């Protein structure tokens, strides 16, 4: 299981990049991109954690998180458009 631990570490770094982009911008559009990436990273991490914890039941989160990531991205993009309309 050390393999998944290493991969999880890599994903942590990518999440950190997403967080940094959310914070740094420079435009709000960049932040929305980062949100999208954060959810992707989360989904990958959940899948790997399911392996690590040996609990397939956890995988239901993959579906939920994919859906939610999509909705969140759309909602935040929507916010951005409403500001500029």
């Amino acid at each position, binding site marked *: 299981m050390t393999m998944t631990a290493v991969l999880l570490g890599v994903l942590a770094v990518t999440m950190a990049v997403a967080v940094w982009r959310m914070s740094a911008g420079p435009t709000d559009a960049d*932040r929305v991109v980062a949100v999208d990436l954060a*959810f992707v990273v989360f989904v990958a991490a*959940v899948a790997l954690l399911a392996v690590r914890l040996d609990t397939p039941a956890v995988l239901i989160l993959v579906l939920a*998180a994919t859906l939610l990531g999509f909705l*969140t991205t759309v*909602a935040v993009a929507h916010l951005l458009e409403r500001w500029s309309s």
Partner: protein
Amino acid sequence: MSGEGGALVAALLAMGVLALLSPALDRRLGRDAGYVLAVGFLVVAAVLTPAASTALDGGAVTFSHAWTDSPEISFTLRMDGLATLFCLLVLGVGALIMAYCPRYLTAGGRHGRTYLLLTLFGGAMLGLVLAGDLLLLFVFWEMTTVASFFLIGTGGARAARPAVRALLVTGMGGLALLVAMVLLGIAAGSTDLATVLRAREEVLDSPLSPAIATLLILAAFTKSAQVPFQFWLPGAMVAITPVSAYLHAATMVKAGIYLLLRFSALYSGQTGWSVCLMGVGLLTAVLGAAQALREHDLKALLAHSTVSQLGLLVAAIGVGTTVALAAAILHTFAHALFKATLFMIVGVIDRQAGSRDIRELSGLMRIMPVTATLAGLAGLSMAGVLPMIGFVSKESLFQGFAGADVFPGAGVVAAALAVTASALTFAYGMRIFYGAFAGPMLQRQLHEPSWAFIAPAAVAAVAGAVLGPAVSVLDPLMRQAVLNAEPWAVPPYFAFWHGLSPELFLSALTIASGLVLFSERDRVDRMLQRLPRPDGAAAFDRVHSAVLGAGAVVGRPDRSDSTAAYLARPAAALVVLGCVGVFAADGPGIRAGAPSDPVDWGVLALLAMAVAALVRTRSALAAVSLLGAVGLIVALWFLLAGAPDVALTLLLVEVLTAMTAAFVLSDLAPRFPRPRRGAAAAALAGAAGLVAALGTLALTGGRELSPAGAYFLEAAEPETGGRNVVNTILVDFRGLDTLGEASVLAAAALGLLLLLPGQPDGTAGGPRAPYGRVLGPAHRLLLPGIAGLSAYLFLRGHYEPGGGFSAALVAGTAVAFGYLAGRTGTRWLSPRPLLAAGLVLGAAVGLAAMPLGDPFLTPFTIAVPGGGLSSPLLFDAAVYLMVLGLVVTVVDRLGAGRGEHR
């Protein structure tokens, strides 16, 4: 209960009944109701006569009935000699005042309230002097305070401030009395007045003794208008004259005198007591008399005169010798007679001549000879001139003061001051008479008032004149009163003529000095007018507004409009608690640390980074995004901690929160306002965070699996059939929490419906929705999948991660998605039916077990074709409905922002 004891209750009840009847009497008889009430007072006096005769024989009539056990208040009434004397004043003078009212009050006006209050006041005063229980005494004491407040208030709008001053000053004394009574009860081991008064040794030996004495004195001084509380009494003269006559001649102010006399049995002869009473009393006597001498308003003059006379009484009680006490008692009686007369006469003059100012009045003697005569009689009595009763009492007072032995030379000082006050008294007595009645006749149209108007004054004046030579008639009463005040005393017999005694010499000196003062009145007046006026009322007002101002300052932080001003305090409280915790850190039960997984550290680092970015950003969109990121990271942490249900729910909640925030933010500016005082906030927040971390470290993670946790893990499957233990806790073991929590959501939804009334153009979304063209197909494509996921989570929640909340939240995302995609909801997918069905279903499923004799929320199964429908599933369905109801409400009310209306 003896028959006579019953008479005491009957007397009090009768006063109450009279009071309640007085408005009706006023409606029936108009102002003449006063005559009926006067008769009533006399009847009450008659009721008390048998008891009085017992009291005068040295006995005491008592009545006792338990009121409350703890705190113990006993409704005990007790009539002894001292009480009898004061009853006589209350009822006798009361009857005269009541008989005076009808002619004084205006015809045709409504006086029911005045009569009611006067009678109530008389009743309270009667209760005060009859009270045989410490706390009952306080009860009646406060009732006189309140009644007097409203009586002074009868003076109209300008009476409000004086009434407030009187109430607050005497109310303060009342609270002192309350504490005195409570402490006395503790010191003496009883609240029964007679018992307490017999326990002189215990009380004096108690460490509470000085405090009790001080508080008693404070109470008496405020009520009896002693320096520095004297100012309220002249101010209270805005009340109508009958009120002044009753309250300030015979009753209210004498309550303080009564209190001091009553507790002389405990403190008489104690040095501190004596020095305090004599010092303040004589000071008050001299200052009051001097003040009276420069007044022009007759009523104000009488008010200051009252203050002065009360000072003499207090001082005499302070001397504490039997002679002095006897003198004080006799002078109390005499003062009631002459002062009541004078007040009534001033009222007569006021009504007849339209003024009370001696600069406007003149020569009334020729027009109103009878009135003048009566005024003369009362004035002579006040001035202590032969043969009035005032002469006898003043002689006794001089005798008492001269015999003062508190410290060497006390007698001389006391007598000198008493003579000074009395000389001033003589002078202002002359000033009254000369000012009003002497001189040229200015108002020829005036005439003698009707006999009915002056008859009450006449009775009092004549009594004062007759009782001087016949003072021995009063001996049984006075001697018994003295005995009650000082049980160990050998009371003297009063004599009209003491022979050529030192007191007679002092009287002569008094009169001579008084005459000098009067003859030099112009110079004296000029001199007095130049003296500074001690304006106690203004000082009181300054203190009063200072207190109000201090209150405003105290309340100022709580008028702030900024949330931070309020939220900082719990944060600070937490920090303080943390500091306490650090000091207690080596106490029993404190331990450190839950273990952690290496992956935890990675999650933690991410968390710290995201939180730091979140608090620093001023971009609203960054904040929303980072909040979502924090949610994702925390969800990962929950997954690592073995809580997939929590992670799932958190994720759903997080996204719905972020979407809601995005809806709301679309109305607001994309940048947060520039913060101020960031450093202080950061310091406080940092400290709170540190405390939270230390608290978590010290107070969690150091114990075995809890018995409850073990039970749930073990019992979940056999007892409920569920394999997802968390879900069985939610719907089976602790369903009540879940019901409550779903009700919270229902309430939040109802609140939003109330807070944000619906848009007139109907549901959210619709043609204005932003991404209709492209998201519409996506919505059509995904909706069955989302619905399936929701159904799966709901049905499998008992066995795998999921359940009512998460299933409904997934369905909720579909609703939100539908809004973004411009798809309108169906009619049943609106808040009201969802919330109603959820609430009813949740409560009903819980209640359904009760008819079978099972507790609320006991699970059961309904047989349906193809299996069983279990109540936990129905219960979860209720949760589902309410959660979905909230999400639908949020989308409906928050989705359509201002931007939509353009």
